[in-house]
């Protein structure tokens, strides 16, 4: 197999409050021999909020991001569910609606760009599974995660709406997703089956409706705890932030103590592949994963 090459769209979070996401992603790619080229020209995807204010502006900025992957002739790979949704949704709308595409391209022409629709958009989790292959990941495991019960938390924006993601996820069913479970199994971890695994973490209303956000985050965390999870793992940094940071306030609202490490998907892979401590970056997690401290 020739070396896999992708344009990596980092999103904002991986460059700001979750640097461990970017460093562990790069470390995993390095170990597996995948080449990730940073899409440094890219802007914020609007995190599903910009489109509420000005939908056309959100389409234009996201289309611009895709243009740069197209220029390199590479697939655009994301490491955040919300980046994935917004980028894939822009692509979907532009590809199916020539009128919209023309409007957006009229704007992009002003800065010398054109959206063509030639680059695929895929989350790194699914690139690992579909392009690289879990069998090959399994071969590279040096520290099996067999001592841990790991609860997969899928995050809404990678799996819903399924019509939009079907292609890039290889047909993941949002009511019974399996990809993250199979990744955990490939790393020889024990998967935790719990109802909340495909539910919402509440992140997006954290500012305006903290009660809603806390209730959803807390319910998911408690569900994992009640099913004997040692940790949660998620492909979305926004889920990770909300679930990692809000344990105290969610616990207070729901009347129970909550303490459970929440890892980024690439952090978990990096641990199993024996990447160095610095790039795994566990020190940045608010609720410490003490299981891994030597």
């Amino acid at each position: 197999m020739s070396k896999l090459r992708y344009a990596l769209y980092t999103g904002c979070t991986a460059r700001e409050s979750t640097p461990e996401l970017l460093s562990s992603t790069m470390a995993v790619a390095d170990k597996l021999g995948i080449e990730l080229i940073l899409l440094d020209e890219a802007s914020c995807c609007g995190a599903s909020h910009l489109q509420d204010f000005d939908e056309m502006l959100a389409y234009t900025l996201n289309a611009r991001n895709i243009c740069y992957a197209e220029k390199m002739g590479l697939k655009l790979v994301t490491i955040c569910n919300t980046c994935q949704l917004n980028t894939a949704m822009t692509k979907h709308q532009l590809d199916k609606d020539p009128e919209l595409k023309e409007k957006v391209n009229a704007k992009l022409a002003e800065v010398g760009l054109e959206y063509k629709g030639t680059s695929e958009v895929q989350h790194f989790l699914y690139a690992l599974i579909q392009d690289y292959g879990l069998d090959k990941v399994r071969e590279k495991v040096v520290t099996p995660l067999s001592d841990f019960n790991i609860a997969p938390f899928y995050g809404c924006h990678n799996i819903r709406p399924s019509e939009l993601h079907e292609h890039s996820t290889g047909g993941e069913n949002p009511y019974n997703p399996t990809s993250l479970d199979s990744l955990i199994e490939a790393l020889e971890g024990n998967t935790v089956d719990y109802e909340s695994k495909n539910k919402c973490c509440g992140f997006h209303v954290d500012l305006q409706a903290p009660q809603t956000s806390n209730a959803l985050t807390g319910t998911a965390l408690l569900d994992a705890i009640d099913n004997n999870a040692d940790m949660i793992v998620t492909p979305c940094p926004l889920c990770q932030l909300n679930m990692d940071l809000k344990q105290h306030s969610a616990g207070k609202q729901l009347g129970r103590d909550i303490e459970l490490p929440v890892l980024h998907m690439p952090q978990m892979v990096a641990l199993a592949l024996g990447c160095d401590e610095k790039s795994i970056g566990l020190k940045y997690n608010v609720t410490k994963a003490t299981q891994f401290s030597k």
Partner: protein
Amino acid sequence: MIHTEEEVIKEVLHLNEEEHRPDFAHTRKVKVKVFRFNVETDYLPYYKTYEMKVSKDELILDLLNRIKWEHDGSFSYRRSCRHGICGACAIKVNGKAVLACKENAQDLVKIFGNELVFEPQSQKRAVKDMIIDKSDFWEKHAAVKPYVEATVDPRPTKETLMTPTKAEQFLESDYCIQCGACHYSCPALEVNEDYLGPAALVSAYRFTIDPRDEASEERLELTSQMGIGVWDCVKCNECVEACPKEINPIEKITKLHNMQFEQGIAKRNVATKHAEGFVRSIKKYGYLDEQDIVMYSEGLGVVKHMSEAIKMIKAGKIHPFDVMKKKMPRSKNLDEIQKLIKITQTNKL
């Protein structure tokens, strides 16, 4: 020549012998676990399990009928049209919202395996088995004025015409059959009883976009209210997945958001500033300034995030003393982004 009824059916449907016989080769044994509850006699709900042979063409409604006809006549569920049009037969199977009369049983076996669990749309609203008290749904529906409000000339001299472009703007929101599948799949509604929910918001959009309607402003005011309106949607997309009519409720919610700004109805509050604040950051850095967006949106309210901010500082996630924003990433070719914002942005707060 006289034909039997069977012959006529075969003739009309072009069926050959093979097709006319039940397809035993593709029949599967399925365990159906059914939620049972009678609000008048039961203290708690319970489940009953039925082993059934399910042929490849059977719908969930066929299985509901068989449970009632072959096993327990007291089993209760709603159905009327059997054509995916009345919305009465909506239930949940293994947590997935379905219209019983549209959903093929074996398709669900493919997703969930040989055990199917039938439950009402909302267990806490269960009245009898699959039947729920849907009054909260209808209250929310009524609240958005789900009708055209217009001063109509009693003796019109010409037709009110709807152009194709105008009709397209409905985005098929007028296809809603009020089945409640989205409403009872919405997690925001589950934890916030005041939230109008996806179905009512679809209706709000449907009538607000109607060119004959005169209550648009009123509806936009209502649906922009904090605690009940569009700002309380958590963006989980459960409603999109649940809708049997492929209406995509969150798409209409996004349109309502945009219309608030377009029509100058949006008031400055934490939610509207949060949405608008993205432009402010992206203009400066290309990226979102995660600290600034919280401070800008919250204003003085930012103090309530203190304890979390301290946790983030301790973990090295944020850098409060980086006043020169040295640690803030900046997109390459930022000037392109700034220009695109300048020539594309139309909405204001």
